[in-house]
């Protein structure tokens, strides 16, 4: 069974500090929701409130339609995987996985069957008699997931489960997590710092900043239509280039420093002369023969990453930082000055005051940003 999770005006205060501020979120049954945000923005706190490890200061939490705001963690039908795995060091792998079941009145052979099944799914059948200290980080990670699976909960909660693994193992576990989710179909709330994890695993991404939800949307949506400046700067790698500019016509922004005019992919209904912030994805800068306005870039460092080259440098004229991501090997461009065309599809315009995206305003949620 899988169950939806609903947060209604959930708030958390520690002392006088409001850490989570009136969060509203509805995860459908079986949905994979990823929470991202800067360190300290309240991701773990939110997850811990759903788990029942932290009491809410206000609002309600519903799991499968049932109000669990005051319920104990074990009564919420959830399982949680911690960043440091939190295995019981004195128990074997099998005991770790079966601990929750031994506390219920589950019959012995039923417990053995479920532990065996989870171990088979995760490929840890050979490790069942070992103690956690005799396992590698990746194996511990699997045991932690096994412990969650064995309980057959309606909702999985993950708090940065892969962040202690090396890059290769993380990529491998990420794929396994996706497969596991497809196989079990359980509602999942997943906290991560990792962009790739967020983009690849999520049905919907929730971007948090200082305890306030900035945007909720599918990966493509938050990437292509960031609701505000924060989301634009947070999602995408390398980080989006941002410049102060002025709207000169409904579809053109002028960058006074660099004395360039950049064409947009859409028209904006705002008075000419309005102060805006222009965002250009590093992927939207092209080294090519295209006619039209060019940005002149002083390249300082050119990083060849195998399929693309990331140019780090400054915008000639204004000296603002500029990053471009070009296909192919352009390592030779280091210390040179290049002219880059701008792909309008990768441009975004934000109101300099409200920081909201002027191209794709989402009116229905505009009251959430302060």
């Amino acid at each position, binding site marked *: 069974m899988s169950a939806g999770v609903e947060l209604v005006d959930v708030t958390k205060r520690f002392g006088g500090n409001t850490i989570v501020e009136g969060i509203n979120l509805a995860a459908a049954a079986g949905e994979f929701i990823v929470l991202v945000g800067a360190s300290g923005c309240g991701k773990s706190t939110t997850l811990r409130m759903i*788990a*029942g*490890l932290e009491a809410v200061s206000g609002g309600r939490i519903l799991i499968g339609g049932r109000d669990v705001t005051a319920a*104990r*963690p*074990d009564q919420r039908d*959830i*399982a*949680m995987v*911690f*960043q*440091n795995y*939190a*295995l*019981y*060091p*004195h128990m074997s792998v099998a005991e770790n996985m079966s*601990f*929750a079941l031994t*506390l*219920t009145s589950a019959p012995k052979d039923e417990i053995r069957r479920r532990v065996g099944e989870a171990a088979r799914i995760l490929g840890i059948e050979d490790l069942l008699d070992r*103690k956690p*200290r005799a396992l590698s980080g990746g194996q511990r990670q699997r045991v932690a997931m096994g*412990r969650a699976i064995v*309980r057959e909960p309606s909702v999985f909660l993950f708090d940065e489960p892969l962040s202690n693994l090396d890059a290769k193992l993380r990529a491998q576990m990420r794929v396994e997590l996706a497969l596991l989710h497809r196989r079990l179909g359980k509602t999942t709330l997943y906290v991560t710092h990792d962009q790739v994890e967020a983009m690849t695993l999520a049905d919907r991404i929730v971007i948090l900043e200082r305890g306030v939800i900035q945007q909720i949307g599918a990966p493509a949506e938050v990437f292509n239509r960031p609701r505000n400046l924060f989301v634009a700067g947070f999602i995408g790698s390398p980080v989006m280039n941002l410049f102060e500019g002025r709207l000169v016509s409904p579809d053109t922004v002028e960058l006074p420093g660099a004395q360039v005019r950049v064409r947009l992919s859409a028209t904006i209904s705002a008075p000419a002369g309005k102060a805006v912030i222009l965002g250009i994805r590093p992927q939207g800068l092209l080294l090519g023969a295209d006619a039209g306005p060019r940005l002149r870039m002083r390249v300082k460092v050119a990083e060849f990453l195998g399929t693309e080259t990331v140019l780090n440098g400054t915008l000639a004229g204004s000296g603002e930082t500029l990053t471009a991501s070009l296909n192919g090997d352009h390592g030779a461009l280091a210390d040179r000055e290049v002219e880059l065309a701008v792909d309008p599809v990768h441009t975004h315009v934000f109101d300099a005051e409200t920081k909201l995206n002027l191209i794709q305003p989402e009116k229905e949620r505009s009251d959430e940003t302060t």
Partner: protein
Amino acid sequence: MAMTPAPHSSARTAWFFILPAAIIMLAAGLYPVISAIRLGFYDWSMGTPWAQARWTGWTSFQIVFGDPAVWRSLWTTLKFAAVSVSAEMFLGVALALALEGNIRGMAFFRTLFILPMMVAPIAVGLTWRYLFDAQFGPINALLAVFGVAAKGWLADETLAFAAIIVSDIWQWTPFVFIMVIAGLASIDSSVLEAARIDGARWWTLTRRVKLPMIAHVLAITLVMRLIDAFRVLEVIYVLTFGGPGDSTEVLSMYIYKTAFIGQKLGAASAISVLLLAVVMFLTWLALRMSNPLADGENGQ
């Protein structure tokens, strides 16, 4: 985590640096033990030159092992250690579990609870002697309030034995308390949270997660308390001097009397060797049950 074996040269370098300290530790630890054993083979009185000491061979040991007073005091010691250390472990663990939370004012209580440990044993003995005093002691005064007749606490064999146990519990429960508090504080809180999600309530959490996770702390605490309990002297010296009769005459009290009242240092040394053997055996047993020094598995 697997440990990669250090290359030979670096292991040798390590020995080079550790050796001086190790030799000093060994010498400081072994010298008194060896001289105590050696003394057991001589007949020597204090204040006489060592050169006049007479070699007696195994005689002292033979006398000691045939002396019923030795076995009786060993039995008294065992009873004393068993009762007081069990009570201290139980109370210390219980108190630590009760006071580990972050409730307001707990810091004050924690400090209060460890005060007895800081008092010199002689002072503890004197304090309890006053408390237990048949005529002027507050304990009898308190009992009088409830209409209970005054008791000669230190004059009755059973009550005197109880009295030394009470004073030991009073002084050493705090030691167990702080060891366990420290152990509990070192438990990774997310493990406890995982257990709560798994459905463990207080008792299950304590018995199946917390206590097993601090098993090594409990073992080392138990060993230290046992060793101390077997060597207890000062409080008994002040409180009962082994009496009434020989009811509270623990082994170290008997050693003291043999050495300084009986002036039989050889015999006293021989009994000391017996005490050492018993303590070593108990330590070995406790460490075998849960060895905190080994890197292997512990705490079942």
